[in-house]
Structure formats: structure tokens, C-alpha cells
């Protein structure tokens, strides 16, 4: 089964609105990452947050991590049509080895112009 599970599976919003995606995982982690995938392309790394961090920002992205609840959220503020993509969380799970990063099934975001 997946270590990380994103919620919701799909999200449709108007341009300019904020988009929030959540990721839950099962075992202790060293770090958690978020990736974006445009249709038909490879994944692109967005942000990495370590287990001792609670919040991290990168441009219009804000990521939070709650290790007590084993969950993370990705907030995209002031969304644009170009943000339309699938978003995946990825966790390194111990035991299993930190090199075995596990991806969730993703949230498909549609931003309507």
C-alpha cells in the first residue's frame, strides 16, 4: 500500500483562488517532498520539508508538516492556469531505507481561467 496518500484526488478552482492539498503517511519519516507533474511530463520537485520543520515557503507555495498527525499540506496561493497539474507527495520511510522514497497517488488540480 502507498506510504503517502493525497487528498483530495481532484480539485477544480478558479484562477486567483488558493488551492490546498493534503498528504497523509503511515510511518516515521526523515523528510517529505512535494512534486508537480504536468500532463505527459516527468515530475518536477517543488519543495522538501524535514521532519524537524513545521512550515516552509517557496514563492506562492506553503508547505506544513505535522509529524504527530503524520500529515502535510501544500497550499498554492493566488493560483494561475499554469498551476494546472498533478501534485504528489513523497516520503522516505524508515524502516525501508531512506533511499526508497515512496510517492502517493496524487491530487489532480485544475485551475480555470
Amino acid at each position, binding site marked *: 500500500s*502507498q506510504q503517502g496518500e493525497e487528498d483530495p484526488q481532484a480539485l477544480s478552482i478558479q484562477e486567483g483562488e488558493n488551492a490546498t492539498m493534503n498528504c497523509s503517511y503511515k510511518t516515521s519519516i*526523515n*523528510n517529505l*517532498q512535494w512534486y508537480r507533474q504536468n500532463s*505527459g*511530463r*516527468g*515530475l*518536477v*520537485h517543488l519543495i*522538501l520539508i524535514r521532519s524537524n520543520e513545521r512550515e516552509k515557503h517557496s514563492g506562492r507555495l506553503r508547505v506544513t508538516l505535522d509529524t504527530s498527525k503524520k500529515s502535510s499540506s501544500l497550499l498554492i496561493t493566488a493560483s494561475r492556469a499554469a498551476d494546472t497539474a498533478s501534485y*504528489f507527495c*513523497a516520503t*522516505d520511510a524508515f524502516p525501508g*531505507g*531512506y*533511499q*526508497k*522514497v*515512496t*510517492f*502517493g*497517488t*496524487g491530487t489532480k488540480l485544475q485551475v480555470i481561467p
Partner: protein
Amino acid sequence: DAGITQSPRHKVTETGTPVTLRCHQTENHRYMYWYRQDPGHGLRLIHYSYGVKDTDKGEVSDGYSVSRSKTEDFLLTLESATSSQTSVYFCAISESAGDEQFFGPGTRLTVL
């Protein structure tokens, strides 16, 4: 973009034939990974390498083998392709375990 390429980009083959996919990097990263992506399953790790001639299994390694004879190349082989191996295959690289991964453009494989 990270210097990572995959070949071929598209392949159609028949059940029972051997298939080799190639991943090539110019970043000199230690770690290389092969994933497959299927609807409803996200990305699943097939095999990964942590150095030349050092490889290990991932979540869905059955029916696949890998080799890494040079830092820059990581080969994925399907010894006898089956229809269940129809998928999009992605190669990725990273400097260290658990770090940011850089992905290739993917190979779409269809097994008839």
C-alpha cells in the same frame, strides 16, 4: 533542467520479447531510480542504484532487472515482456538518499 535523458521515448513490443530501457545522466549523481506510473497507483519504485554495480529492489521489482556499469547509465530490462508491464517508465536521479529527485521525460511502453 537536469541532464537526464531516457531512450527510447516510445516503444511498442509483443508479449514475450525482451526490452531494455536506458537512462543516461550528465550530473554525476550517485543515486538512480526506475519507476513505473500507472493510473490509480501513482509512481512505484522498480529498482534503484546507489553506485556503480550497486543496485537494490523496489516495491514492484518482479519481472525486471537492472544494471549500472557506469555512473551515467542505468538500464532497465524486461526479460520477457508481459501486457501487465504496459506503463510509463520514469528514470530519476539524486545526489543523496532521500534528497530531491530529478526526473527524466519518461518512456511509454506498450506490450501487445
